[in-house]
């Protein structure tokens, strides 16, 4: 019908050509139909008919205002906002238009913008009770949000450390476990700790707090991009995700030797969550960090964040074994973990992968202010979340966050930054590792039989200063104590869906 009209009049009404009287009349009829659909709650058809009316007569603010309301009812807030804005543009005195726009903005969480429109309405209709009510409500929300922002930034400055009095914590005589030696981590302490944990015993909270407070200080002094040199005769072992699989971590130390100045390690994130022994894993890793600060490196993974810890078990485990306050401190410490490490200016290591945009340089990484929860997008998010893909270009991530990047992205990033290749983790691989992008993107994953389900091997990489090509070593899962099923939200001993 509308098509026929256009054919007759040689193009619809528009800025150059106002609607004919016939079109105006027909548009009104369509709007009346639309209103009926609206009353009957058939919003889809209401929108359809309003749209047809608009096609015939695009100068009528009411059509846009009505369609905006139909969109609001179907939660298409973006369209509702666009229509309300158009309505008000066509007729500055159309009060309903301001209402609609305010409602759209409220739904989109843009409370300040909504407030401006409610203010307009109240000015134009000072006796309208409903308008005043909406204005007051909106004003309250705007004030509340401002208050929340203020105290949030306040809380952020105050650390859990300030409310701790570790000195006054006493260790009972009955505690026969490991203690720091004069407040310091020693090799003897670490050996005792690892055995203590192997026997499923708990480290005294005072010692746990001491470790956390000290490691926070050490990590906070590090740059976001850690740059290390590996001399010709030196080597380093790079491990991927360990995910609370403590007994498999012990096995890595069995197979590859304990960390030391001559046996340095890099652990590439995701130390906690999913496995039932995240506390044991993380405190062991933090202990070694304190013992060998320049030869034991920890990088942040996407699981060293509050969101993940809440759902995937670490928060639950810390609260069960210690307290919520201890978890808050863990959270702060995680925020200081560096995001990437570069060896000899040639090999770059990060947990997730490369970037959603071209042109990122090592300097950009250095400049990231990392002591925060990662944002929803951007380089910090990408470093923790992205994945390689086989095809060129970039795609939307299967994870719903960050992106997937192709071999061309890797190649140009490496060229721009004069690197040889990247090592990352983040994805479980059946063989414990995978080489992609023509050797330029290596994945290493060190949690064998992930979640007691996947049956995968774990692996770690040897890098020698003389030859920076990755040398892969695989290993399989070792037995671990049967903690009760579904412990701490992990899928260890997962029974599936019974």
């Amino acid at each position, binding site marked *: 019908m509308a098509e026929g009209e256009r054919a007759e009049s040689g193009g619809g009404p528009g800025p150059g050509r106002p609607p004919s009287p016939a079109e105006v009349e027909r548009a009104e009829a369509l709007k009346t139909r639309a209103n009926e659909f609206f009353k009957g709650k058939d919003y889809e058809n209401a929108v359809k008919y309003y749209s047809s009316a608009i096609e015939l007569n695009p100068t009528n603010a009411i059509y846009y205002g009505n369609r905006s309301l139909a969109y609001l009812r179907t939660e298409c807030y973006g369209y509702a906002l666009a229509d309300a804005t158009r309505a008000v543009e066509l007729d500055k005195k159309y009060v309903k238009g301001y209402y609609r726009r305010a409602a759209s903005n409220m739904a989109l969480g843009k409370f300040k913008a909504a407030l401006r429109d409610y203010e307009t309405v109240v000015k134009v209709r000072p006796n309208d009770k409903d308008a005043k009510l909406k204005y007051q409500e909106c004003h309250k929300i705007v004030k509340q949000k401002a208050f929340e922002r203020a105290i949030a930034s306040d809380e952020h400055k105050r650390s859990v450390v300030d409310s701790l009095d570790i000195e006054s914590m006493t260790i009972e005589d009955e505690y026969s476990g490991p203690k720091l030696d004069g407040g310091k981590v020693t090799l003897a302490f670490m050996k005792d700790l690892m055995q203590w944990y192997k026997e499923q015993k708990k480290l005294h909270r005072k010692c746990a707090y001491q470790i956390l407070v000290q490691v926070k200080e050490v990590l906070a002094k590090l740059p976001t991009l850690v740059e290390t040199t590996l001399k010709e005769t030196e080597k380093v072992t790079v491990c991927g995700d360990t995910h609370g699989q403590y007994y498999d971590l012990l096995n890595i130390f069995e197979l590859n030797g304990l960390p030391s100045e001559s046996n340095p390690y890099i652990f590439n994130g995701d130390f906690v969550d999913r496995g039932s022994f995240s506390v044991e894993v993380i405190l062991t890793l933090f202990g070694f960090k304190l013992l060998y600060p320049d030869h034991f490196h920890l990088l942040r993974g996407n699981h060293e964040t509050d969101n993940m810890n809440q759902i995937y078990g670490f928060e639950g485990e810390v609260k069960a074994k210690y307290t919520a306050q201890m978890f808050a401190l863990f959270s702060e410490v995680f925020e200081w973990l560096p995001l990437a490490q570069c060896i000899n200016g040639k090999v770059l290591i990060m947990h997730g992968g490369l970037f959603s945009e071209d042109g990122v340089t090592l300097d950009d990484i250095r400049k990231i202010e990392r002591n925060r929860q990662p944002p929803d997008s951007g380089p910090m998010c990408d470093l923790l979340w992205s994945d390689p893909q086989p095809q060129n270009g970039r795609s939307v991530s299967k994870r719903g966050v960050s992106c997937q990047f192709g071999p061309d992205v890797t190649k140009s990033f490496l060229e721009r930054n004069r690197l040889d290749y990247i090592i990352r983790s983040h994805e479980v691989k059946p063989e414990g590792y995978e080489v992609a992008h023509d050797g330029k993107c290596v994945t290493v994953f060190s949690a064998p039989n992930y979640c007691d389900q996947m*049956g995968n091997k774990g692996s770690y990489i040897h890098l020698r200063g003389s030859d920076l090509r990755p040398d892969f070593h695989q290993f399989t899962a070792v037995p671990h104590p049967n903690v009760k099923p579904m412990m701490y939200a992990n899928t260890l001993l997962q029974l599936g869906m019974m």
Partner: protein
Amino acid sequence: MAAAARDPVSATGLDEADEAVRGTCEDASVCKRFAVSVGYWKDPYIQYFVRQAKERKAPEINRGYYARVHGVSYLIKAFLKKTECNCQIVNLGAGMDTLFWRLKDENLLPRKYFEVDFPMIVARKIHNIKSKPPLSKPIMESHSGDSLLIDSHSLDSSRYSIVGADLRFSSDLEEKLKKHNLDIHLPTLLVAECVLVYMTPQQSSNLLKWAASTFPVAMFINYEQVNMTDRFGQIMIENLQRRQCNLAGVEVCRSLDSQRERLLLNGWETARAIDMMKVYSFLPQADVKRIEGLEFLDEKELFEQLMQHYCICWASKDSSNLGLANITF
């Protein structure tokens, strides 16, 4: 009951195995209750049957139960529609399932809804029903005529009946159901969620054969494991064995084909089977998007693996040509 017929030595061994199977009832219900509490779907009744979970369940488990509950429910409602509720539903191994109450809320009750499980579980369920008005009221409301028949292992009302029986003994099962006015001439839907896998292939075949030969117009819905010969499947079997839970019928869970064949070989006319990843993709995607927003899934691998190892199978026989064979996703 039938246990008396078995010799004492093997009875104990069997009892231990049965006890482990009974334990899965609580697992499933607790998981469902947790998922409901996070907002995956609404079930106002499950809280009266089972305790709250002590720890969070992993998001893939929650999504898995969501798909299971909605997938099975979809087929059940299709059956109810095709028969215009002039039918029966027999929930085999029902555990603490709340479907009767939810169907009543939606005015979708069949002529009669039967639940069957181990006597110990039935006793517990009846106890919950008796002591909690939100559970007993709907049963009393839908009941007409003389007083309800309740004893320790069975409850019978006009629209709802629950019976303690061993599914491995179908003649005993049939007798008990008929005592509660099972009408074999009504189109009947039998549902088994994670039930057949705990019996030997022989025992589950007998049950399926019994159902196919007893009801002239019927549909069978089976939810359980599939694709169990790969590494993931083997590990699941090992994990379960460590908890003394034996998947006696896992051989049939080799593949979707073996699941289909098992139904066809036991007297059913048509049979279909799809894995839960497929089911998930067939569910109304608007709601799927909603639940995906409830808990962020950090990676898809575990979820996909889990879902590819469970399936929904359904079979029908239709001497009345109601079109049951057309029921599908």
